[in-house]
């Protein structure tokens, strides 16, 4: 990877005029980490967010007591411009990632809430409280977010010195399941409608409590994170970098590959590992295949939620072709099992290439015709228009991602803002619609289906030669960086801090849907109960994605001076299995 000039210096110097800022790290090319005082945190983030056009991409809370005796929070902002109007956007050479770090003393795990200034931070801070026991002072919403209600209070699973990863606390009796404290509206004559966790329209568990008067949704609240399984602790004993990719894939059944790429690239980014071009191209193809089947599913579901099963099944028929395509590509209907640090595990030979092109042609033709048939129905358009509107201001405040934000008139797309993998070399458009309603999102997806097909074609045509895998490089302990991928639902960010002994110290996954959830409440209001599944569906939510809170956290091995005996042991163990490649 050629060294480019460090981006984002401008922002740092501007920020330096206002606050005490210490630049602590430049990650390769476009990532800067700055350290600020914890009391400056809200103002710094606010300045970066609103004044300089940043969007909150993720926040990671970290237990660094073994490194420097403190906890730390990292707010990762994607600097791309406010984008509220046409042209209100940073030039490509200025777009970058800025990570704001603040240390929080271990004896006083409290920091001022950023969410009051930047609402987008609300879920992150709730989660930090759940998982790490870091309290955001002044945060209006102090309810539990990620942990289940029957999880004992006062135990913060991600602290290094808390529970063993296999610890399973006794559950409650079925009838005594603890009640979640929903934001019940004040007033009479309001009925609760539960949507989920096992609703027929959503194939994943999430519980939406709609507060309705007749058909109208007055307000909504939701309890998600039903699928929080605590993968993080798993990795402590079991997973190494090679295995992480597989658990990353299983963050989500649909955009698993995006997670895997994001996860692996976050570790590749920190060392600047030069992944072979062919591997990058294959990653791109797989990502787009994933986007194809995901979008086809979602457009189909929009029809199903409005009762048009025929259109849904026809769309599904097309989707099956993309699944077969994935099967040709990766050997399974999900784009799983493809990626390891340093490249990809499977190559694309000419047989597969030709097969793919055949499928592409059919999918494109069929989709064009089928979409025509779906959009043709005036009732369908009526059901979708003006429903679940994402207000532009709310969108700016909550940093949503993906088709959700692109349907609201913002051209945010990681592929376009921060090109990764092979996207630099490829020609594509970012479809943007301005109404913010369900229809806009459907149209954005429809547009992206065509773009994806074109991207895959370009990749297949320009597929570079060379190997698909290179050897891993050595990772500097406690270095950290982010991996970013535009999943079908929007940007996936993985923040990784590496431990010593070539294992991960902390892995913070922020799935795309995670950023879309908090603003959903405002999209619900005023719509009819009948539209609720449609609105939820139009986010193309990935419950498991966001709920996993996949902070895989590999317990670092203790640093010690390597004894001669250990060295030998290492030598012997290597010799022990000379046949293991």
């Amino acid at each position, binding site marked *: 990877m050629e060294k480019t000039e460090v981006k984002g210096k401008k922002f740092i110097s501007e920020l330096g005029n206002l606050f005490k800022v210490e630049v602590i790290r430049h990650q390769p090319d476009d990532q800067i980490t700055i350290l600020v005082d914890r009391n400056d945190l809200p103002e710094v983030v606010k300045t970066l967010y609103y004044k300089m056009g940043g969007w909150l991409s993720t926040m990671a809370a970290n237990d660094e007591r073994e490194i420097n005796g403190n906890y730390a929070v990292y707010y990762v902002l994607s600097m791309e411009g406010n984008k509220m109007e046409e042209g209100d956007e940073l030039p490509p050479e200025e777009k970058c990632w800025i990570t704001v770090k603040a240390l929080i003393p271990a004896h006083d795990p409290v920091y001022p809430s950023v969410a009051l200034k930047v609402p987008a931070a609300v879920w992150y801070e709730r989660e930090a409280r759940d998982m790490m026991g870091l309290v955001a002072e002044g945060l209006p919403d102090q309810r539990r977010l990620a942990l289940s209600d029957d999880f004992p209070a006062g135990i913060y699973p991600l602290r290094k010195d808390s529970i063993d990863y296999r610890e399973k606390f006794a559950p409650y009796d079925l009838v005594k399941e603890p009640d979640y404290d929903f934001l019940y509206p004040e007033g009479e004559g309001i009925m609760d409608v539960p949507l989920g966790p096992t609703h*027929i329209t959503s194939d994943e568990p999430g519980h939406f409590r709609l507060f309705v008067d007749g058909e109208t949704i007055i307000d909504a609240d939701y309890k998600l994170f039903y699928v929080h399984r605590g993968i993080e602790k798993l990795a402590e004993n079991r997973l190494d970098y090679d295995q992480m990719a597989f658990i990353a894939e299983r963050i989500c059944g649909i955009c698993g590959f995006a997670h895997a790429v994001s996860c692996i690239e976050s570790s590749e980014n920190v060392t600047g590992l030069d992944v072979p071009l062919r591997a990058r191209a294959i990653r791109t193809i797989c990502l787009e295949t994933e986007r194809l089947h995901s979008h086809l599913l979602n457009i189909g579901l929009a029809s199903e*939620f409005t*009762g048009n*099963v025929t259109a849904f099944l026809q769309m599904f028929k097309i989707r099956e072709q993309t699944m077969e395509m994935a099967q040709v590509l990766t050997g399974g209907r999900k784009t799983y099992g493809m990626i390891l640090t340093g490249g990809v595990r499977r190559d694309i030979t000419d047989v597969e290439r030709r097969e793919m092109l055949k499928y592409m042609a059919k999918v494109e033709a069929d989709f064009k015709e089928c979409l025509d048939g779906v959009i043709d129905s005036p*009732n369908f358009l009526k059901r979708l228009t003006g429903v679940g509107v994402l207000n532009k201001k709310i969108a700016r405040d909550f940093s949503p991602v993906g088709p959700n934000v692109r349907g609201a008139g913002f051209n945010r797309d990681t592929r376009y803002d921060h090109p990764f993998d092979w996207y630099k070399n490829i020609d594509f458009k970012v479809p943007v619609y301005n109404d913010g309603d369900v229809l806009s999102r459907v149209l954005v997806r429809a547009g992206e289906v065509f773009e994806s097909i074109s991207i895959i074609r370009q990749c297949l045509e320009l597929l570079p030669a060379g190997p698909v895998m290179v050897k891993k490089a050595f990772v500097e302990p406690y270095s950290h960086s982010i991996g970013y991928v535009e999943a079908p639902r929007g940007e996936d960010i993985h923040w990784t801090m590496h431990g010593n002994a070539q294992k991960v110290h902390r892995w913070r996954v922020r799935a795309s849907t995670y950023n879309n959830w908090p603003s959903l409440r405002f999209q619900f209001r005023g719509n*009819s109960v*009948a*539209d609720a599944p449609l609105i939820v569906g139009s986010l193309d939510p990935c419950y498991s994605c966001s709920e996993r809170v996949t902070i895989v956290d590999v317990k670092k091995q203790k640093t010690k001076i390597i004894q001669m005996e250990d060295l030998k042991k290492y030598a012997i163990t290597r010799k022990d299995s000379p046949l293991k490649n």
Partner: protein
Amino acid sequence: MKSSDILYLIIQVIAIILISPLLDGVKRIMLAKFQSRRGPADVFQTYRDIIKLFKRSETMPDCGTWVFRTAPYLMFAIMATVIAVLPIMHSGSALSAAADLFLIVYLFALMRFIFGVASVDSGNPFAGIGGSREQMVALFVEPTIILSSVVVVFLAGGLTNLVEIKNFVSSPQILKVLPVFIFSGVAFLFATYVETGKKPFDVAEAEQEIQEGLLAEYAGKRLALAHGALILKQIAIVGLFITIYIPWPVVGNPFVSLVLFLIKLLVFYYFASFVEGVSTRLRIGDTRLAASGAFALAFISLILFVIGRVG
């Protein structure tokens, strides 16, 4: 009352009840065709489903009272009653005291009443919403049904007995008032379609939106009966339409009449499955707009009738 009438009544109701799952089966195969798939093994799939449900054990919500328990039986019996009194096979005037237009309209109301109460009784929020929607849909279509059928009653000289109406409509006199009749017929047909709860008007039992409403809480035989009652309701309302508006061809043989009736029913289902197959469910608010269009048609038929009488 002639004993043959009673016999015909029984044959008629049993035959229609036994054949009704077939219509559902036909619809399912049709839908499968639109969806490029094979669909059920044969047209008898719905029979198998229902028989199996009868054999299943049951669960129910703990807040349900006797209303919830008996509702499927009652709803089924009410709709069977409506089907029984429709003058299809029997046309004896002795039964006409039970085949009154308003009586049938209010039997539908009785069905709705039980449906609504049982919905709320189930304690299920979706059933509650479904119960409420059922009433709202009736509110939208009832004016049309009453107005358009009353116009036919006017044509028939003020008699509200279906037998008399049928006799009038099948007589040549109808040709003189054909425009009125057609307008009111189209309005009634539309209202019929809405009332059957087929897509795009299946707001009260929508599977996705409100999880089939009331049906969600039934299991086993009660589910079978409740489901059957809803199918019978469709047949009853379509049957009412057929009786009033399409009595032709008039044949003397009651069995031929029954077969003709079933064929007309099948034709309706055939075309309905086209609509069902490709349409997007309307929001209940839009249902109202659609229904007011039907009411306008019915009103036009009334105006035509008045003008025709004056002129």
